């Protein structure tokens, strides 16, 4: 088990390194550089040269990459090239914002989705099952920016219940923060619940048909106990997997939701960074996103093993 985890971590680090190389190479391929992005049309060859010199852009790409990597392994994310601020200072507040929203959505979304999944499995074929399925499929089929705009229209403009701007700032109270981020949280809920719910339903149904569940019923157990004690543990592995996948989405894939609600998260930050070709910032974001994916996938894999006695005790 420990050996396996260590191997996974090593692989994860390798993946991250690969991501950093690809992102660096990718940004090199984009037309223009940070100097031309800053100066834009008013760039003259002289002012461009002056700025490139100031930013150290004439240094060969390979050298710049090694320089960045050396700093990174020492925990130094470098400085933004566009506005000379330390990347870490810009990154972490946004990282916490992103994590806050993801946690808010996951804290409500995951129990809700798993609960609904179990309930629909138990009531298979009933009105409740069908209704929940239709609604969930409906919301997951709509793009998140559309759902966000509909929520704003109904809950912010027509009936001012929640603010349309998810405006968060340092020093804001926890309750205020929850209030400000409720609409984006609801949007994310609508797009993530369906998948987890349906996966739970399918997994539970698969084991519900098996012989040991029938035996449990035959010895007179109540449905609740059969499902929770006997069926669910064996259905857990695929559910954990899809939950991890959705949490990774909540952290890394919410650029559109951030745009609609003007939420100051990492997604928007990375878009800005790419637009300005601000390499240290792009790299830092890519590393955070990459790490989130690697960690969550690893957790899902390890959980799947831990939950499965056959994998837990290999013969």
């Amino acid at each position, binding site marked *: 088990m420990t050996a396996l985890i260590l191997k996974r971590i090593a692989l994860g680090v390798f993946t991250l390194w690969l991501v950093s190389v690809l992102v660096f190479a990718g940004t090199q391929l*984009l*037309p*223009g550089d940070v*100097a*031309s*992005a*800053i*100066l*834009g*049309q*008013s*760039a*003259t060859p*002289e*002012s*461009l040269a*002056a*700025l490139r010199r*100031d930013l150290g852009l004439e240094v060969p790409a390979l050298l710049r990459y090694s320089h960045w990597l050396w700093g990174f392994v020492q925990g130094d994310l470098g400085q*933004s090239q*566009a*506005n*000379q*601020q330390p990347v870490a200072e*810009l990154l972490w507040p946004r990282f916490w914002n992103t994590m806050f929203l993801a946690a808010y959505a996951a804290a409500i979304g995951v129990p809700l989705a798993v609960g609904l999944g179990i309930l629909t499995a138990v009531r298979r074929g009933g009105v409740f099952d069908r209704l929940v399925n239709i609604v969930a499929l409906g919301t997951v089929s709509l793009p998140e920016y559309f759902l966000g*705009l509909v929520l*704003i229209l109904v809950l*912010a*403009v027509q009936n*001012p219940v929640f*603010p*349309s*701007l998810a*405006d968060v*700032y340092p020093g804001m109270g926890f309750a205020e923060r929850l209030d400000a981020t409720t609409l984006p949280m609801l949007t994310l809920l609508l797009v993530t619940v369906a998948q987890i719910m349906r996966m739970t339903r399918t997994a539970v149904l698969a084991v519900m048909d098996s012989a040991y569940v029938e035996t449990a019923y035959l010895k007179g157990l109540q449905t609740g106990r059969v499902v929770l004690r006997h069926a669910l543990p064996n259905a857990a592995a695929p559910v954990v997997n899809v939950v991890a996948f959705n949490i990774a989405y909540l952290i890394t894939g919410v650029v559109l939701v951030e*745009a*609609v*609600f*003007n939420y*100051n998260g990492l997604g*928007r*930050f990375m878009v*800005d*960074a790419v*637009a*300005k070709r*601000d390499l240290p*910032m792009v790299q830092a974001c890519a590393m955070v996103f990459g790490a989130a994916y690697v960690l969550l996938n690893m957790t899902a894999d390890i959980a799947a093993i831990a939950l499965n006695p056959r994998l837990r005790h290999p013969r």
Partner: protein
Amino acid sequence: MTRRDFPQLETTRRGLLLGAAGLGLATASGSLNRAFAQDTPRKGGVLKLGMGGGSTTDTLDPRVMTDWVPLNQAFMLMNGLVEIDRNNQAVPELLESWEAKPGAAEWVFTLRQGVTFHSGKALTVEDVIYSINLHRGETSSAARAIAEQIKDVRKLSESQIAIELTGGNADLPFLLSDYHFLVVPEGFTDWSKPIGTGPFVYESYEPGVRSRFTRNPSYWKPGCANVDAVEVIVINDVAARTNALMSGQVHAINRLDFKTVDLLKRNPKLQIVQSAGGQHFTFLMDCTKAPFSDVNVRLAIKHAIDREQLLKVALRGYGQLGNDHPIPRTDRFFNTELPQRAYDPDKAKHYLQQAGMSDLKVELSSSDAAFGGAVDAAAIFRAAAAKAGIDVTIKRESPDGYWEKVWLQAPFSMGYWGGRPTADQMLSIAYASDAKWNDTHWKNAQFDKLLLEARGLLDDAKRKEIYWTLQEMISNDGGAMIPMFGDYLDGVSTQVQGVTPHPMFNFMGGRLAERVWLAA
């Protein structure tokens, strides 16, 4: 002032970017859809502005500052040398008055007295010279091209400076209104926290996210700096911005979506501020490449577009018709007698015949990087041109790198200019033979000679005569088809008083915060 901005999310993102800090328009035309209670300013309240055009990579360094949000924030903290008023005149800001010697190559400027920085230090001639010199010599300044015309800046006395130019330029005060020419104390370098003489004092600033500045109690401009504090929230998505205004989270937003303006006008709590200015959209023909090397082909193209329809569809009518030259009708030198070119397929065919062709096939490089809706505009042109026997193939280019790879290179492409403070600047930057951004590669020695002559003239009547000729030359011979000018549109809550249209950019030329007040 970046021509190459990153992929456009919206129509007018590059408006500011393109315009050097002002537009030289003679009269501010524009309208408000509601009358304002223009009573005396009231002090107090916190003004909240929702603005598009900001990025986490923003900086307030006047040398490399760009885009809408920093421009507005900079004008809250700092003052410029000269400002453009709502009637498009260059009026004093920190420079109180000026005088040009004949030939307009030597100027004397007098400094406003009794102005102090937020630090308490009094404004001196040295501060102004330092601030101008930031853009001169070996510098990465975006205003370097303008500052290059300045040969020397020197102190004459405690209240006067002399500026010597490399050649006569009657528009120097307009050039000094460029938003990069902001005044800071001599030797100042801490751009993360600028100290200026502006209406508000730095409190907090997070690039691309928000800022909060508090009132400067000893601000020198009368009737200004009325609100206790001003907060800027950067909202780049136009829908999010509009929602924030409608749900009352902000008092005002800049750069409305042309498509939703009519809907917003129905809301009784909002006022729409519409300002005609110099931003215009271009179809660029490279005059050195066949078939556009033939003026008849250029004229055929210019007659093959339905401008009225384009204006109605692309800008929902919020703009002005263009007449194939870049001078807006708000400019004091706008040629009012040049007949407006109209859609005329027969005339287009006639010009094709003159060129010895019965039909014409052209490829138009288009991308929404040129301006939001450019691809749609190309499609509208294609349909109209087909009736004139011109077969237009639309080549969709990637928005990323459009300004590096397509603009100035493709034989027939689309583009956009935010306008310039003066006719001379606009013509010099894109139409003079040796202009860096001569995006039609049109060269005309007579034009260059007249342009240079007008620049040094202090006699407006004579200048007008020349600029009228120049507009006619571009319109009839040049390579740019300019079908329309787009207005600047802002949405403001009726609670905000004292808002006026302004020919230079959104939000009253970037100085909205210091002018307005909140109704009780």
